[in-house]
Each structure stands twice: as structure tokens, then as C-alpha cells.
């Protein structure tokens, strides 16, 4: 008995379906790699608990508890760290030949990158949910309307989408998963700390304060604090006065710049 293979034909909706098949594979990968799962579950939860209870007592914020101030920053940082996952996944697929295998198949153009992006985006939702729950336990509360709260979560998803492209760019430019790790810790890590992520920007020394005020991570942290009705940085720099607008500008700018660059870098790396 033999399976008859229908003549493969060009079909509509091919991009969406191919993207989903690749994305599903990415999600299976997360489930079957305990260490990758820890990145998106244990690590964010640990950060919330550590900062809330270890540093929390030493850091004073105006207008509320440190725990409430902390959550906006920790959401933003976790989303930025999501770039590692995308980049490492892509670099891994490149180094072990999976990308070549996909490219030898009659896939719709863009579905391999699209699948990685969708899987990363879905993967990014898990820590946001877990951290929200964890935040509630340590005393974080949303005090604004449902619409504003929804706006906060929407902003996180939009920021995650932008960060996916940063990850694709890194994953295409850097040759190995190890190189990605290196760049992640020397570049992305400081970016998330020289910001109002964990402490109000005005407590930093002058030059760093300027960096922090204009840092997109600060903007997203601060925008989330505003949207969730949590205590804010109280800085009078323009970005910190208008964090939501400034965040949206950054998100659009990151996508507009990184997406084309990432697609170009990806094509260049693979077509050799």
C-alpha cells in the first residue's frame, strides 16, 4: 500500500500556513528544551522576586511602593531579553543546516522568518502572563481603567514585535549561538540597566541620566507605569513626560529600521 501524493500546486494562503508550520516547530522546541523554558518562566519570576524583596527595601520611589514601580521596568527588560531567544534560535538553525533544508522546500517566501517571529512572539506572552501573576503576589496593582490596562498589554505586544526584528538582525549577523550570547550580555544587558527600569532615572549620575531619559527601555517602562497607574520616575525630561508617545515612536522606528535590515542580512547570510 502506498500513499498517493497529490500534485503540489500553488495555493492561496500558503504563506500563513507555512509560517504556522514553522512557528509550531519553534513552540515544540521551547517545550522540549527545559533550559529554554526556564528563560521565559523561572528567570522573569526570579527577577520580580529578587528586585521586590532584595533591592526593594533600599530603593525609594515617590508616590507609592517600589514593588509597583518595579513591574513596568521588569516587563520592559524581559521583552528586550526576548531578542536573545529569537537570535539564538535563528543562529542555531543556520549552523545546523535546518534553514537550508527549509529553503530546499517549496515554501512561500518569508515563511521561515515569519515562523520564527510568530513563535517568538507567542513565546514572549508566557513570561508576561507569569510576571503579571507574580507581580500581583508581591503587591503590584493595576489602578487604571480596563482600557488603559489593555493599552499597557498591547504596548508590550507591540514592543515584543519590534524586539523580534532586533533578534532576527542579530541572529542573521552573528555566526553562532555563542556569539549571540556574547553580544547579548555586552550590549543588551547594559541597555536595560542604564534606564529607569529598576530605579528612577534622576537617581543616576548626570551623563547616564541623559542616556536613561532617552532610552527606549525607560520609555516603555514608564509608559507601562502610566498605563497601569503605578508610581513613575518623576523626571521632567521630554521623553519621560510623554512616555507613551515616545514608546510608540521607538517601536515604529525599530520596526522600520530593523525589519528591512534584518531581512536583508538574513537573505545575505543564507544565500551563499
Amino acid at each position, binding site marked *: *500500500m*502506498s*500513499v*498517493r*501524493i*497529490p500534485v*503540489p*500546486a500553488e*495555493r492561496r494562503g*500558503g504563506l500563513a*500556513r*507555512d509560517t504556522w*508550520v*514553522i512557528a509550531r*516547530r519553534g513552540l*515544540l*522546541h521551547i517545550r*522540549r*528544551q527545559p533550559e529554554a523554558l526556564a528563560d521565559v518562566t523561572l528567570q522573569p519570576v526570579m527577577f520580580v522576586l529578587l528586585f521586590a524583596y532584595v533591592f526593594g527595601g533600599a530603593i525609594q520611589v515617590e508616590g507609592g511602593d517600589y514593588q509597583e514601580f518595579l513591574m513596568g521596568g521588569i516587563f520592559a527588560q524581559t521583552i528586550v531579553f526576548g531578542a536573545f531567544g529569537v537570535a539564538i534560535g535563528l543562529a542555531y538553525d*543556520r549552523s*545546523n*543546516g*535546518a534553514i*537550508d*533544508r*527549509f*529553503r*530546499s*522546500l*517549496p*515554501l512561500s517566501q518569508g515563511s521561515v522568518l515569519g515562523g520564527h517571529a510568530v513563535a517568538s512572539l507567542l513565546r514572549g506572552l508566557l513570561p508576561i502572563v507569569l510576571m503579571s501573576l507574580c507581580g500581583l503576589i508581591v503587591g503590584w496593582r493595576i489602578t487604571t481603567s480596563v482600557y488603559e490596562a489593555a493599552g499597557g498589554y498591547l504596548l508590550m505586544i507591540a514592543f515584543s514585535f519590534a524586539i523580534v526584528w532586533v533578534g532576527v538582525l542579530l541572529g542573521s549577523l552573528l*555566526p553562532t549561538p555563542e556569539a549571540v550570547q556574547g553580544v547579548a550580555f555586552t550590549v543588551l544587558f547594559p541597555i536595560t540597566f542604564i534606564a529607569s527600569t529598576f530605579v528612577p532615572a534622576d537617581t543616576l549620575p548626570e551623563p547616564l541620566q541623559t542616556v536613561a531619559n532617552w532610552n527606549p527601555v525607560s520609555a516603555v517602562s514608564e509608559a507601562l507605569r502610566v498605563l497601569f497607574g503605578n508610581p513613575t520616575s518623576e523626571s521632567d525630561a521630554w521623553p519621560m513626560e510623554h512616555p507613551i508617545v515616545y514608546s510608540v515612536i521607538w517601536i515604529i522606528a525599530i520596526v522600520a529600521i530593523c525589519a528591512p535590515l534584518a531581512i536583508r542580512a538574513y537573505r545575505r*547570510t*543564507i*544565500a*551563499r
Partner: protein
Amino acid sequence: MPPIQTALAIEASGLVKRYGEKVALDGVSFEVPRGTVCGLLGPNGAGKTTAVRILTTLAEADAGSARVAGLDVHASAKAVRRLLGLAAQEATVDGLLTGRENLIMIGELHHLGRRTSVARADELLDQFALTDAAGRLAKTYSGGMRRRLDLAATLVARPEVLFLDEPTTGLDPRARNELWAVLDTLVGEGTTILLTTQYLEEADRLADDIVVIDHGRVIARGDAAGLKRQVGGSQLFATVADAARLPEAAGILARVSGSAPEIDEAARSVHAGGDEGPRAVARLGEALADAGIEVEDLGLRRPTLDDVFLTLTGAPADAGADAPQAAEVGG
């Protein structure tokens, strides 16, 4: 768009590919008729993988053109991908998926639909003796099992043309023999196969036609027998137990074969051209026995493809082993 029916499954003409300073392919041309097996034979770094990458649409040639099943690999890349199966040098099965999931995913990416993909996966698992391991993650498979799964993955959509890049590299002899048997079946079904190999024995065993490439150029082509003829006829040889008696044995060999013998001290053997066939072997054995020379081995040796390589390039087949491989340069 249906493929145009042509007698040639693969046509490469004047393919050139450079990676920076390094010229990986320097004008490679060859054709593979439908339903035949072509062996692309060459040492590491000869340009085999680069040629396969261009023919399978993964890389673009800097010059020249190529057609697979009558379709231009550049202009009709997607149509070509529907018709080809590629097993790359490293088995590219997904270690974090089970064997079955791997095959189903490939089927779905070939747009076979979920149900057909599942049925086809089970059929292939059975054919490749992987049914028992179907539910295990592929990273737990042995090297031979990974290769079989990889090959099964390339066959999901019943490709017309199959590209196998060093299919048995890294396999132990048993796994290699198993893989060869599978390839025999495919050939029997009429699939066109292009396989690259640095094992001369493998090209000899599997290929109808052999294209020998070295430093990005085709240096010879033909069937195994033809290539061997290029090198010359058979060699009559004898290995003796006592090296001191080599000159004496050489004298006897000269008399029996009628041609000038050569002595290999290290191997304690003498050999000479012997076109008279097996009868000469018998006469040589008798003459050596009469002289009281103890013989360890005796026979008629057909030239191997290693000899072909030595004759064509003036260097042993593994001379390029230290050169960087095209695939590695290409990342």
C-alpha cells in the same frame, strides 16, 4: 506549471562560484540523464557541495546556468524545489522533534495536507525501519538512523531528482551498507540521483556515470569502467613472505607477464601489467612455487578509482583534505 519533459534531469553549464578570493567552481559543466545515478567525485574542497547548493537553488552561481528537470534553477526556483529532494552533508533532521514529527512537518511544508503528510510519514518510517523509533526525539537516534530519517525526509514528496551530499560520510560500515541498499531501491524506482562522495568505492558501487572534479573543475567523466581504462589495464601482482626474495620474484613475474615489473619493498610485493587475465595468475603461482618462494598473496588487480585520481591529478585523492571546504567557506 508542469515540468517540461526532457531527457536530461540535470544540466549544469559553465557554473562559476567565488567566495571572496577562493574560486569554488571554475566553469563546471555536466549532464545527468533521467533515471540515472551520477557520482560527483572529488576530494574535500573540490567544489562538490557548492555545485549541489547551486543545483538545489540554495546558492546562486556567479556565472553559468543550470537546469533541473528542464527548469532553470534561478528563474524557476520554486518549481524546481517541488521536484527535488536534498540530503545535505550533515543530516539536518530536527533533534527536538520526533522522527514522525520531522516527516510530517516536511510533508506539510510540501503542502501535502495534514492527512496525506501523516500517512506518508508512516509509510516512510516503515520503509526505513524506523517505525519503532518513530515517537522518539531524533536527537536520541544513532548516526545511521539520523541518516535514514534524513533520507526519508527528502523523499516525502516523491522527488524526481534527488541530491545526496556525501550521504555516507561518518557512517560505520554496516550503516553505510544499509544506506546503499536503500539507494539501490530508489534507483530501481527510476529516481534520478546526484550524489557527491569522496569515497571512490561508493561512486563505483552506486553511480552509472562519474564526474570527477578537483579545484572547481571537471577533470574527467565517464562510467567507472571507462575511467579505469584511462588508467590502463589490470595488474598482476604477488606478495612474498620474505623480502629478500623480491628480486627473484620480480624476475619470474617479468617472464610470466612479458612486461617490466615494479617492486614495492614496503609491501613486499611485485606487480606488472598483465592483460592475459586469470590464466597468468595460475602460471605465476606455479612458477613461484617451483622456485620455492613463499607467497602470501597473489592475483590480478583491476585499477581502482584511486589509481584514476592519481593518474588524472598527479596527486592522491586525499591531497586536498587540508584545503578549506567550499561549504565551510560559505558558512
